[in-house]
């Protein structure tokens, strides 16, 4: 056994061309897998963080009817008594903010566009959804002033800037038309593209007044309490609140179901791509191993003539293949770590791309890779196993040949 291992180690270094080609194929496969996997994981995590931080919060309390009709954001399904809910949640340790969301026709000089409007309490907003922390121009609207903050990309699309005026036309809770003149007080550029692309924030009290909402809101949003156990915390809150039957506590996963599904779909597509890529690498490795084995048929004949039996021969070539796989995987691991380290620290600037196209991910600006140690270990071991499996069939075939046929092989 020790003899075979020593022979295998020596054989490995004898034909450097074969060693380099085969190890390079394995290294490329392992390295690219680690990099792609890290990038997909990084974008996925970043997208999830942005979704929770800037869009959904940890959870929201909404009326059941409003949730069922959420695509229309109906104001008549808003609910009262939110102050008491907020107090109870505060006592449980949660930061919350009330929100009114509705659709409005946004009229500017060049035309109009129907957009979702978010009326918020700017005094408590940032402790839950830190949107105004990303002001890139102007300031937060003053209380009860007809002012608004716009996503910077939206403002650019509409030709608006700080100080510009625009008109909102919508219906009140009772269904009558209402028009409101607003002035752009500030612009935000957040890590969440949908905010930048289509969000208008205005003062909650002003919205309640003009929309005849009295003291109703469409949702109460809760901030992340424990980022590692959001689901459990939401369940704990639900149990403690004893909500009235017409209200629902929805976790960020339910609120951002489209984003979660989109991200999952993208991850599946990426996984398919990675599997296809791995298969291509596997075929490459199998091919080089096949060639490497077949060009050594005569050598196998000589070894058998010198007294190596079939099991020892299989073991020798398998050991060589596994050592080759180890070498390729080690180089691949290094390659993957170096590639991934660059994208973990420097990231990839997608801002130009995501401004033009909605990719489903809640990402804008620079996207960073993440480290995924189990996948790294898996791909490292996978490279070794792949080399072993790829060499096994040709070795088995050669071992079945007679020694005389092996020796005659040219």
């Amino acid at each position, binding site marked *: 056994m020790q003899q075979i291992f020593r022979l295998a180690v020596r054989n490995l270094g004898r034909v450097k061309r074969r060693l380099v080609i085969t190890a390079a194929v394995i290294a490329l496969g392992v390295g690219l897998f680690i990099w792609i996997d890290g990038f997909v994981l990084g974008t996925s995590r970043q997208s999830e963080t942005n979704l929770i931080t800037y869009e959904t919060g940890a959870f929201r309390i909404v009326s059941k009817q409003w949730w069922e009709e959420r695509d229309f954001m109906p104001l008549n399904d808003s609910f009262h008594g939110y102050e008491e809910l907020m107090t109870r949640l505060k006592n449980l340790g949660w930061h919350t903010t009330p929100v009114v969301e509705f659709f409005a026709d946004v009229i500017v000089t060049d035309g109009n566009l129907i957009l979702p409007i978010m009326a918020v309490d700017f005094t408590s907003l940032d402790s839950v959804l830190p949107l105004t922390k990303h002001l890139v121009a102007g300031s937060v609207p003053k209380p009860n002033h007809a002012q608004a903050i716009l996503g910077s990309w939206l403002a650019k699309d509409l030709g608006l800037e700080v100080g510009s005026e625009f008109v909102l036309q919508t219906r009140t809770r009772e269904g009558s038309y209402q028009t409101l003149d607003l002035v752009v007080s500030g612009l935000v550029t957040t890590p969440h593209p949908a905010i930048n692309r289509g969000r208008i924030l205005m003062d909650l009290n002003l919205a309640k007044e003009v929309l005849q909402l009295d003291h109703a809101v469409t949702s109460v949003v809760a901030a992340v309490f424990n980022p590692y156990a959001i689901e459990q915390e939401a369940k704990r809150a639900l149990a403690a609140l004893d909500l009235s039957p017409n209200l629902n506590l929805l976790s960020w996963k339910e609120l951002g179901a489209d984003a979660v599904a989109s991200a999952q779909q993208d991850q599946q597509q990426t996984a398919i791509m990675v599997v296809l890529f791995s298969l291509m690498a596997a075929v490459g490795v199998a091919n080089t191993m096949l060639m490497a084995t077949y060009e050594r048929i005569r*050598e196998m004949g000589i070894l058998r*003539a*010198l*007294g190596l039996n079939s099991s020892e021969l299989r073991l020798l070539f398998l050991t060589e293949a596994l050592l080759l796989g180890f070498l390729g995987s080690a180089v691949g691991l290094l390659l993957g770590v170096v590639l991934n380290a660059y994208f973990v620290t420097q990231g990839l600037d997608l801002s130009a791309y995501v401004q033009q196209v909605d990719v489903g991910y809640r990402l804008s600006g620079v996207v960073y890779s993440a480290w995924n140690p189990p996948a790294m270990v898996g791909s490292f071991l996978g490279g070794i196993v792949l080399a072993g499996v790829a060499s096994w069939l040709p070795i088995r075939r050669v071992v079945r040949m007679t*020694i*005389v046929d092996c*020796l005659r092989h040219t």
Partner: protein
Amino acid sequence: MIEIRDLVKEYPTEGEAVRALRGLTLTIADEEFVSIAGPSGSGKTTLLNLIGCLDTATSGEIRLNQKLVSGMTKRELASIRRESLGFVFQSYNLIPVLTALENVALALELLGLSHNQVQVRARAALAEVGLKGLEDRLPGKLSGGQQQRVAIARALVKNPAVVLADEPTANLDSKTGEEILKLMRNLNETTGTTFVFSTHDKMVMDYAKRLVLLQDGQIIHDERRGP
């Protein structure tokens, strides 16, 4: 001692099986220097392959030092090849990526000897066949005669009972061929190793101490010659 009785070897083909050996019986004593001669297709190489446990007979018996080889498992046959037999092939069959020394050492490494023992014995074997100073050359950098000497050193280094040489001079010019034959005969006399080699070359036959002529898979002449 090699004892062969009623040895038959058939090669299956699409039509009728080809009979390479037809009930051959032969005994070769220890320390003999035997030439198996005959025209192409007479069964020389087949006989050597069977004696060398590289192939299995269709029927008949082969005994090597009283051990019945026929019917042995592949593992047992490998063990016999490893410990008791040395081979010299027409086309040398050296491993091209190994140096002369490594090619010879390989036969000893398979016996599980220590690195030092392997190095000492392999160097001595190469010196014995006149290749001192060429230990680190790859086969591609050696002449045909030198490569065949490496092959002889590889066959002899493990002190086998029998060395089987299939047309050992066929790829060499007559002068080099003669040198190889002299070397083999000298080694036979000094080490006492039995040499069995096949040939269809008259000059080679003249060097043999015993000449066995084959035709159509049967012995047609068996002659012992003087020293």
